[in-house]
């Protein structure tokens, strides 16, 4: 009798597994075929010396050896870290705050949400143009305002000590809208009854936020954190548009992906570029796995 029950349980588990494999199969195989396989080929390229138009020869660890000796790689790795660890937490804090405010029954909430979402749909060229104008040393809005208080403004994107932080500000600005949408959707999953119970206990808005909202939002926060880190580690567009090769602060602002772009598409050094991509993969993978391990300590799943 007991054996039969155990057997059935085992059967049940087997059938669960089968269901799981079938359900993940389309996505896993699709990702493997269209994304992972090209990535594997890229990893192979990182061990080659690339000539023009796909003529390559095996080069062993040459690219990696060169990479370790290349000061610009280390410098841009540092830039990428500064960029990521500054922009991600600030952007997340602001977006949670905004999402909580925009999750209330206040007048015009739809309008606010749309306005906060606009940076996400605004053309990158327009974003770069506006920020460049704001930061312009001679004619820029910020420095003009500062000078009316007789403060001499800095060379926002032309001063090697400041440029990276100027970019971090743009990054925060442009990611708040994205994160807000995810947090808004996450907030919907928090049952209203919790708040009603808290109110009966006399908890004010702050206590409700820290006791209910924040803990129950942790699965979403975890998601946003992982995704934001991955995206921040891959920062590229902003640097190309706001700094680019013709700004002498490029050494102090370029990210690993910018360096990749330079080697792959400007100077046609694709093997070396692939090696940079692989290094980036290894770093992000390590950071993500650490986060996945740590999540048990702070993420509340039901």
């Amino acid at each position, binding site marked *: 009798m007991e054996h039969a029950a155990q057997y059935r349980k085992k059967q049940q588990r087997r059938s669960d597994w089968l269901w799981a494999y079938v*359900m993940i199969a389309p996505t896993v195989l699709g990702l493997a075929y269209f994304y992972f*396989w*090209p990535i594997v080929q*890229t990893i192979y390229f990182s061990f080659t010396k690339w000539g023009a138009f796909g003529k390559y020869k095996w080069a062993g660890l040459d690219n990696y050896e060169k990479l370790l000796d290349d000061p610009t790689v280390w410098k841009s790795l540092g830039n990428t870290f500064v960029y990521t660890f500054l922009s991600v937490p600030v952007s997340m804090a602001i977006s949670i705050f905004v999402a909580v*405010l925009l999750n209330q029954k206040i007048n015009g909430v739809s309008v606010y949400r749309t306005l906060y979402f606009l940076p996400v749909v605004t053309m990158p060229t*327009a974003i770069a143009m506006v920020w460049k104008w704001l930061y312009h040393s001679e004619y820029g809005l910020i420095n003009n305002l500062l000078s009316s208080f007789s403060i001499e403004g800095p060379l926002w994107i032309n001063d090697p000590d400041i440029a990276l932080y100027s970019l971090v500000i743009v990054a925060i600005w442009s990611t708040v809208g994205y994160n807000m*949408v995810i947090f808004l959707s996450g907030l919907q999953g928090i049952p209203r009854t919790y708040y009603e119970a808290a109110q009966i206990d006399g908890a004010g808005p702050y206590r409700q936020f820290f006791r209910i909202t924040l803990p129950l939002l942790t699965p979403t926060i975890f998601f946003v954190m992982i995704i934001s880190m991955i995206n921040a580690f891959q920062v590229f567009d902003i640097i190309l548009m706001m700094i680019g090769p013709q700004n002498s602060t490029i050494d102090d602002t370029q990210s690993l992906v910018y360096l990749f772009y330079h080697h792959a598409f400007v100077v046609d050094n694709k093997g070396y570029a692939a090696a940079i991509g692989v290094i980036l*993969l290894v770093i992000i993978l390590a950071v*993500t796995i650490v986060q996945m391990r740590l999540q048990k300590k702070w993420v509340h799943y039901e």
Partner: protein
Amino acid sequence: MKATVGTTTRKAAIGIHLILIFGALLMVGPFLWMLLTSFKTLGEATQVPPIIFPKVFQWKNYADATVTLPFFTFYWNTIITTVAKVLGQMILCSIAAYAFARIEFPGRNVLFVFCLSVLMVPSQVYLLPQFLLIRDLGWLNSLEALIVPGLFSAFGTFLLRQFFLSLPKELEESAKLDGCNHIQIYFHIMLPLIKPGLIALAIFTALWSWNDLMWPLIVNSSPEKMTLSAGLASLQGQNMTHYPILMAGALLAILPMIVLFMFLQKQFVEGISLTGSK
């Protein structure tokens, strides 16, 4: 007692509005800039320091943008691509996410990290092998090239997995007792509960598909197979860019996205109210 609650909430409401308005002003700047530029003359658009308001609103820029490019073909291709990707991802990602979140199976974590790893390499890095793959499939210059790889999303799977994870366990236990299989639990019980997640996914997938630039330009060549953002990019020249026409075109291009967002975000109002006393 009740009166004080009322006044504090009203005060709080005013405070909240002030904060939100301040934030909104910071957020809309570049968009307004884009809007104003789209009405400027070329001369007004290139002035340093910038001229903020055009002297005369140049509606002509909008007409020029639609004449210069086969706008309607681009629109059509973009809509097809986007609708297919959004529907495809909502189905495929949610099914996979359900399994990752709610079923214990050997290799679950490894396979999940495997999915995530696809996000960890910027797409520029594997552009060439991906292009060769599409060539070998015979899909160059086709909508398939735009749609099929976009049906699979690690981002979407991860996002929805988080939503499935936050649902209570009792849900499927009772359903299993009723004899439901996993597809039935997924479809009838779980899926309706992660609607906010699906909406967020729809917004992002639509947006990324709509704005995707590099991939369509690399795999497709002929104007009949081009998408909007890729087509618009050709307004940015090597030697000269007519910014007003470019911005007018860009506004026409993103208008559907704004409308879509306004529509979809309305689905977020069913949630909780923090102050609760209204």
